[in-house]
């Protein structure tokens, strides 16, 4: 409880700092609007030529895109920079600053550098989402939404652990920090319907680097295609990633040599 209070206080102070640069906030809001606007224009052009993409109607694609943006925005906003900074802490030999504090270092790093620009972007992502439902004209039930949020939350955690695991490689390959941006590039695969991917790419991006499922599984619950197996599969992946994460963290910390005095 005390830890949570500290984290919330910390987040509040960060948010206050961000909001003090008003013009910057305005441009971040516009940036978020551009993201949604360009996705909108892209699919409007595409759907002016075809009626659906592998069975995905226009409304459904906007819900998928909105979900993909939400997950990405929330992850990068709250955790992304912190997770990425681990590679810098290891490189510069300053990780012990976190290892020695009376607080879980993994969590401390996670919340180290929250960026609040995602808050300004959320309304514009919501517009895509709402427009998607407007086009579909039939709202899912409350229970479907409930399952959607569970799946959404699991996706967020999977994304977090996937990136964290990648960045943990810093303990072994110190000067290859650009490798950790790879996950962000792979996220491009999450923006489109699962069914478009074929062959080995599909297998890899559903199981080993399960980027495709991050956005596609939650929205299945809104399109009446969801079942408990999907949630079970997400939990299974999350659990596997957690084991890998714990293993790598313990090994990595043992290997780590500090550089500060």
């Amino acid at each position, binding site marked *: 409880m005390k830890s949570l209070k500290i984290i919330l206080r910390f987040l509040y102070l960060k948010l206050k700092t961000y909001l003090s*640069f008003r*013009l*910057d906030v305005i441009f*971040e809001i516009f940036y978020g609007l551009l*993201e949604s606007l360009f996705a909108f224009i892209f699919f409007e*052009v595409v759907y002016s030529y075809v*009626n659906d993409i592998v069975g995905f109607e226009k409304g459904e694609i906007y819900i998928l895109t909105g979900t993909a943006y939400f997950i990405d925005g929330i992850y990068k906003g709250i955790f992304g920079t912190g997770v990425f900074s681990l590679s810098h802490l290891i490189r510069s030999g300053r990780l012990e600053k976190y290892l020695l504090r009376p607080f879980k270092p993994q969590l401390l790093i996670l919340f180290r550098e929250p960026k609040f620009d995602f808050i300004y972007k959320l309304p514009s992502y919501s517009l895509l989402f709402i427009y998607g439902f407007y086009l579909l004209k039939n709202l899912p039930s409350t229970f479907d939404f409930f399952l959607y949020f569970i799946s959404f939350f699991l996706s967020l955690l999977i994304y977090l652990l996937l990136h964290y695991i990648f960045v943990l490689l810093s303990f072994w390959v110190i000067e290859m920090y*650009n490798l950790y*941006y790879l996950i962000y590039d792979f996220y*491009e695969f999450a923006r489109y319907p699962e069914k478009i991917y074929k062959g080995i790419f599909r297998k890899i991006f559903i199981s080993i680097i399960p980027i495709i499922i991050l956005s596609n599984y939650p929205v299945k619950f809104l399109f009446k295609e969801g079942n408990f197996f999907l949630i079970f599969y997400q939990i299974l992946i999350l659990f596997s990633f957690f084991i890998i994460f714990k293993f790598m963290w313990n090994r990595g910390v043992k290997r780590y040599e500090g550089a500060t005095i």
Partner: protein
Amino acid sequence: MFLNLRKYLSLSKISLLLSMQYKINTFFLLSVVIVPPVAYFFLWNSIYYQKEIIGNYKLSEIITYYIISYLFFETRPHAWWDIGYSIKDGRFSLYITKPMNYFLYHFFYSYSYTILWWIFAIFGAFFLFIIFKNYFILPKILPFFLSFFFSFLGGILGFIIEYIFNLFAFWIEKPFGLLRFYDFLVYFLSGSIIPLDLLPFKNFFLFLPFKYLGFFPVSIFIGKVQNINLFNEFLNLALWISFFFILSHIIFYFGRKSYSAPGSL
């Protein structure tokens, strides 16, 4: 000052050496040239399943478009955000006290830094060519070189505009939201998200200078530009470069006057 290029060439050499310091690390930076076009391949492949031609593009043309567009756009030289940072934290004072032109300093530094990107990125595009060879259009020799030439000039134009946006740090307390906004806007206006001639109001988008950062050189590559238009386009591009070059110097002149060296020693 402009004729004394030796110091800038030395700077370029240093920049190139710095870029080669961690080659594997730089290599991973270019995953952005490989990964998104693969996703676009699957997406457009599904779209073309229903229709043979979209706009005036066949499937092979659109796949080649994205591969080359990412190659050109993502490897363009950047006016680093460090320009904006240095103005904000006072390090800018170090530059203006040196016997160097501030613009040329960053220009040469940036262009040399991207040489290694280009080498890796061309390998990346070649890798995609092998994977998608049935969907890739190989251009004739002249369009091939012309597309790279226009991409090079487009890179100069992009650099100057980005440099101008960095200079706004003279007046804005924190310019990074503006820079991110600009970055993403250019991503769209250069035609990296969707070919500009598929957009509504395409004449407006084709009038803007940003088409030279991606769309136009790629159109030459896939053979969609007639030779007769090339000279006009070259003149047009030269005019845009001249215009922004002059504008950048005017903004720099006034910006420097308002600079108060905050945070510097």
